[in-house]
C-alpha cells in the first residue's frame, strides 16, 4: 500500500512543477510588454521601468523562475497592483466563502444526484427513469449563470424568501450552492444510473434476488454498496472542478470569493493575483484528484495490486 501511495504522489510532482512553470510563464505570454500593460498606456518610461524591476522582468528567465519558486515556498507571491496588499493577503480572506460554497454545493449535489441515479436505475425504462434522466441532462445543459439569475428572480425578487447575494447568513448560501451544484448533480445522476444498471446485472445481485431478499435490500445492500466505490471516486473528482466553477456563481451572486477575485483581477490587469489564483486552482485540482486516486486504491484492492 505504501508503495502504491508513494508511486502516485511521486508521479504528481513533475506535473505540479510543469504547471508551476506554465503559470509562471503566464505573464510572459501576454502580448506586448507586460510592464507597460500593468503601468498603463499613459505611464512614463521611468514608471514602466519601476514596474519591470518590481516584477523582476530584467532578470534572465531561469532566475525569474527560481525567484518565483522561492517565493512560492516562502509565501511571497508579490503585491497586488489593485490594493497594494501582498497577494497572499489578498487571496486569504477570499478562500472561506468559496470553500464553504463548494462544500454546500457538493453535499446537496451528491445526495440528490445519487438518489436520482438509483431511482432511474431501479425504474429502468419506465417514466421515473425518463424523468430522472431529463432532470440530469438538463442539469448538464443549463447555463449556471442563467440558473442563478432565474433563482434570484423567483426566490428573491418574486417571493422574497432568500437574499439576492452576499454571504451574511446561512440562507444566503442556498441559491449560490444550488447554482453551483446543478451540473455536478447531473453528472452524478447519470453516472450512478449507469453504474447501478451494470451492477444490477451481476450474479451476486441475481443470487440475492433468488434468495428472496426484499428489492430494497437487494438494491441498497448489494447493488448500491458495490457501486459506491466508483460513485465516490467520480464525486471526489468533481470537487476540484467545482472550486474553480465558483467563478460564475460568485459573479451572479456578488460573493467576495476566489472566482470573483479572478474575474476582477483580470479586468484590473492585476497579473500577480491572476497568476497566483491560476496556480491555486490548478494545484488544488491536481491534489484533490491525487487524493481521490489514492483513496480509490485504498478502498479498491483491485487497483492497488494492479
Amino acid at each position: 500500500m505504501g508503495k502504491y501511495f508513494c508511486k502516485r504522489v511521486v508521479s504528481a510532482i513533475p506535473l505540479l512543477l510543469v504547471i508551476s512553470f506554465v503559470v509562471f510563464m503566464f505573464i510572459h505570454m501576454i502580448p506586448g510588454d507586460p510592464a507597460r500593460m500593468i503601468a498603463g498606456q499613459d505611464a512614463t518610461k521611468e514608471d514602466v521601468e519601476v514596474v519591470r524591476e518590481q516584477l523582476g522582468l530584467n532578470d534572465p528567465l531561469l532566475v525569474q523562475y527560481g525567484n518565483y519558486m522561492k517565493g512560492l515556498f516562502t509565501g511571497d507571491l508579490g503585491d497586488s497592483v489593485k490594493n497594494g496588499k501582498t497577494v497572499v493577503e489578498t487571496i486569504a480572506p477570499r478562500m472561506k466563502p468559496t470553500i464553504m460554497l463548494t462544500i454546500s454545493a457538493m453535499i446537496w449535489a451528491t445526495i440528490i444526484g445519487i438518489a436520482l441515479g438509483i431511482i432511474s436505475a431501479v425504474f429502468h425504462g419506465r417514466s421515473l427513469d425518463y424523468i430522472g434522466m431529463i432532470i440530469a441532462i438538463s442539469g448538464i445543459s443549463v447555463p449556471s449563470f442563467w440558473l442563478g439569475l432565474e433563482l434570484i428572480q423567483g426566490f428573491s425578487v418574486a417571493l422574497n424568501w432568500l437574499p439576492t447575494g452576499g454571504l451574511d447568513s446561512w440562507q444566503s448560501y442556498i441559491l449560490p450552492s444550488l447554482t453551483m451544484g446543478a451540473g455536478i448533480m447531473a453528472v452524478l445522476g447519470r453516472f450512478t444510473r449507469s453504474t447501478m444498471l451494470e451492477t444490477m446485472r451481476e450474479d451476486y445481485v441475481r443470487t440475492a434476488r433468488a434468495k428472496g431478499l426484499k428489492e430494497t435490500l437487494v438494491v441498497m445492500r448489494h447493488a448500491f454498496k458495490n457501486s459506491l466505490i466508483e460513485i465516490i471516486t467520480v464525486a471526489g473528482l468533481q470537487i476540484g472542478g467545482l472550486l474553480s466553477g465558483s467563478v460564475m456563481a460568485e459573479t451572479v451572486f456578488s460573493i467576495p470569493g476566489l472566482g470573483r477575485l479572478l474575474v476582477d483581477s483580470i479586468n484590473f490587469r492585476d497579473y500577480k493575483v491572476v497568476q497566483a489564483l491560476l496556480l491555486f486552482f490548478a494545484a488544488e485540482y491536481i491534489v484533490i484528484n491525487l487524493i481521490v486516486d489514492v483513496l480509490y486504491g485504498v478502498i479498491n484492492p483491485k487497483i492497488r495490486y494492479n
Partner: protein
Amino acid sequence: MAQTNTNLDQNKFAAAEELPKAQSKVKEFTKKFMKRKTAVVSLIFILFIILMAIIAPFVVPYAPDQPDYTALLQGPSAAHIWGTDEFGQDVFSRLMVGSRLSLSCALIATVIGTAGGVVLGLIAGFYGGFVDSLIMRCCDVLFAFPDILLAIAVVAIIGPGMVNVMIAVAVFTVPSFARIIRSATISVKQSLYVEVARSLGCKNSRILFVHVFPGTIQSMIVNFTMRIGTAILAASSLSFLGFGANVTEPDWGAMLSLGRNYLNTAPHMVLFPGILIFLTVLAFNLLGDGLRDTLDPKMN
C-alpha cells in the same frame, strides 16, 4: 496490357460492390437513429437554429440594432413577442440574429479544437513511445485546468473579444479530443486491415490518414456533437463575464449579461436568451447521446 485490364475490371467490381454496402450502412444507421425520438427532435431543433442563423437577418420582424425609444423594456406583447430591451430593441429579433454569432463562435471553436485534438491523438496513438508521452503529458497539463478556468486563463493572456473567446474554447477542446482519438487509434491500428496495409508497403502517413483515421471517426462525431454544447456554454459564460462579445452585439451570452441589470423591471431580458442557450445545448447533448447509442453496437 491484358493484366492491367483485368486489374481495372476487378477494381471496378470492387467499387461497385462497396457502393451498395455503404448505402445499406447509411440506411441501417438512419433506421436505428430514427427510432431515437429525443435525438430526432433535437436534430430538428438544431437544424431550425442553424436555418435561423442563416436567414434570420432577412426574416425577423425588426432589425436587431434598431432602437425604439417609445418601447423601452417592454414585456412580451403582440408587437414584440419576447419583449424589448433597454434601447427598445426587439429581443426576439436580436436572439434570432444572434444565433449566427453564438453558433458560429461555438462551431468554429469546436472545429479548430477538434482538428487539433484529432491530429495530436492520431499521432500519439499511432507512433506511441516518446511522441505519445510528450503529447499526453502536454494534455495532462491542460487537463489540470478545469474547462472554464482554462478558457478564462487564455482570455486573460490574449485579451477579451469574440475571436479570442473562440481560441480559448478551442484550446480547452483539444486535450479531450486528443485523449479520445488516441485510444481509438491504438485500438484501430491493431486491426488486420492496418497490418495488411503495412505489409503492402504503405507509408505511415497514408496508413494514418487513409486507414486509421476513418476508424476513429465514430468516436469523433459523438464527441464533436457533445462538445458543441459545451462550447456554447463556455462562450456564453465568457461573454456573460464580459470577456466575449461586446454587450451591444446580439450575442446570447452578452444579451443575458446586459439583462441582469434589469432583472427586477424586465425579467424577459434574461429569461428568453437563457431558455434559448439551454435548449440549444440540451439539443446538442441529446443528439450526441442519440448518436452514441445508435453507433454503439452494444446498445443495439
